[in-house]
């Protein structure tokens, strides 16, 4: 299965808008939303059947039994995450700060600490005919996004083994959820934005993606809002030897499509026409020999 991952560095450049159009244009049978702390793809890919759900267990959290705690302070001294506080009777754990390392349990001289498993999110799998869509939602206050991203991808792969192509909608930034989504990806399409912030963030995500040795391509969304910066991005790509797969203009129809739960490829609009071009160029990079029909 070849995996096309959509990333951006900066948030809000149009990852999900592009991903949903690509899903439509490729008639993708496998796709996933790895932006687990702000997932949106499900709002636009219509599914008539409810998904199957699974609890996702993140790292366990430490708990201190106040009846056993002798207030010696060893746990607090050794906790690197400042997750332990104290009152006059006992020490206690801040579950938001606790990373589940188990150091407090190890150093406690009276065995007052235990690690309790905790639900950190909700894994969802939509299956409809030949189509598989894997997504998740992180529980508020939980921290292990990278692990949840890996679970989302694993769930997609297991459920759509025979499929030749999958589209993965990524998350903003360059940290653990992005790194988790990069592992196993064959190609990354970066949706850039023609602003100084967008350019700076694009350069940083390219640096990160290069560590993983994947094919990298760039397209620009809302390209006409700052043609000068769009040209700077094109020049940058040329200089760096990164394929540029096209410019998508700012299009008020795009917002309307999204708010109706449709992709820009579903309606006749300027951004929809442009995204088809980006799609064709991207697919030629991922499948230089041409893609076998999935029928």
């Amino acid at each position, binding site marked *: 299965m070849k995996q096309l991952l959509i990333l*951006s*560095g*900066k*948030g*809000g450049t149009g990852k*999900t808008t592009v991903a949903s159009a690509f899903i439509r244009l490729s008639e993708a049978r496998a796709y996933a939303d790895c932006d*687990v*702390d*702000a*997932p*949106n793809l499900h*709002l636009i890919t219509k599914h008539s059947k409810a998904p199957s759900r699974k609890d996702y267990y993140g*790292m*366990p959290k430490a708990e201190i039994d106040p009846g056993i705690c002798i207030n010696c302070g060893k746990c607090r001294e*050794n906790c*690197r*995450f400042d997750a332990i506080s104290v009152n006059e009777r006992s020490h206690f754990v801040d579950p*938001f700060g606790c990373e*589940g*390392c*188990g*150091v407090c349990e*190890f*150093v406690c001289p009276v065995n007052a600490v235990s690690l309790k498993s905790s639900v950190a999110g909700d894994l969802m799998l939509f299956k409809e005919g030949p189509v598989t869509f894997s997504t998740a*939602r*992180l529980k*508020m*206050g*939980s*921290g*292990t*996004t990278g692990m949840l991203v890996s679970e989302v991808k694993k769930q997609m792969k297991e459920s759509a083994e025979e499929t030749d192509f999958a589209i993965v909608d990524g*998350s*903003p*930034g*360059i*940290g*653990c*959820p992005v*790194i988790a989504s990069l592992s196993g990806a064959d190609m990354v399409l970066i949706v850039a*934005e*023609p*602003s*100084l*912030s*967008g350019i*700076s*963030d694009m350069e*940083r*995500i390219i*640096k*990160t993606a290069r*560590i993983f040795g994947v094919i990298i391509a760039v397209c620009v969304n809302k390209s006409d*809002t*700052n043609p000068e*910066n769009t040209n700077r991005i094109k020049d940058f790509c040329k200089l760096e030897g990164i394929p540029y797969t096209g410019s998508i203009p700012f299009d008020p129809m795009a*917002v*309307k499509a*999204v*708010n109706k739960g449709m992709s820009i490829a579903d309606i006749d609009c300027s951004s929809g026409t442009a995204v088809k071009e980006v799609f064709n160029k991207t697919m030629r990079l991922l499948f230089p020999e041409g893609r076998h029909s999935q029928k």
Partner: protein
Amino acid sequence: MPDFTDMAAKNLKIAILSGKGGTGKTLLSVNLASAAADSVYVDCDVEEPNGHLFFKPQWNIEKEISVKIPQVDPNKCDGCKKCVEFCKFNALAYINKNLKIFDDVCHSCGGCSLVCPQGALTERDKAVGTLSVGDSEGVRVLSGMMKTGIASGIPIIKELLTQCGSLEDDRPIFIDCPPGSACIVMESIKDADYCLLAAEPTIFGRHNLEMVWSLVRLFEKPHSVVINKCVDQSDPTDEFCKENRIKILEKIPFDVELGTLNSNGKIAARENTKYRDLFSSLLEKIYREVPHEATVNSER
């Protein structure tokens, strides 16, 4: 009504966050800090920091941020594997009579060094990013930048907020948060007195606002919403706020001029009186909200 403005501004920490990216966190933070003139701006989006592109400060202090990573003395290690069994993050493995350490997944908890009966494990510093401090027309700018390839920016965010707490002045502090609602956001808003949620009038914006709203409620932070890029059409985010009685402090219309200034790294409030007035009035609304919200919360 008593005037809370002065009281509110002192030492006040305002976090600007949003579930969805690109809704205008940096736009709001940078312009509010500029409208306040005498203020502190902290860029906690250490994965993709952008505030410095607007303020263009002369950096006065730059320091490296590092975390502790274990290292093994192979002469002392007798292969008991106690560290491997202890590590919850699978950052250690004993392969071919050698202890391997995987820096990238290590959480720097220090547990392996504690459990090693031979004292074969010690810790070394691993650089994860930098912290920079500078000034820009009365605004003190603190910015963290994570190195590429590093998984977590939390140690940098922690250091930023510690630095910020040690500043010996009572200027208002504007915290520009990373997008999403995960651990890096929680770390950024932990000490905030007030949270401003930047949202967008789309179903994506609505859905992500819903998530970040539950996060600020979980942390019991007083908050309100600014809807950015508003156009004349049905607004699912506005509906969501009304359904849940969340205060909308401001609606900023979709504006090509503002967008262009912003995409060229210009601070609108410094370029144009129209925008200075917009952000000054938003700032006043925030200052008026804070004591009010604080009273409401203490009555609960």
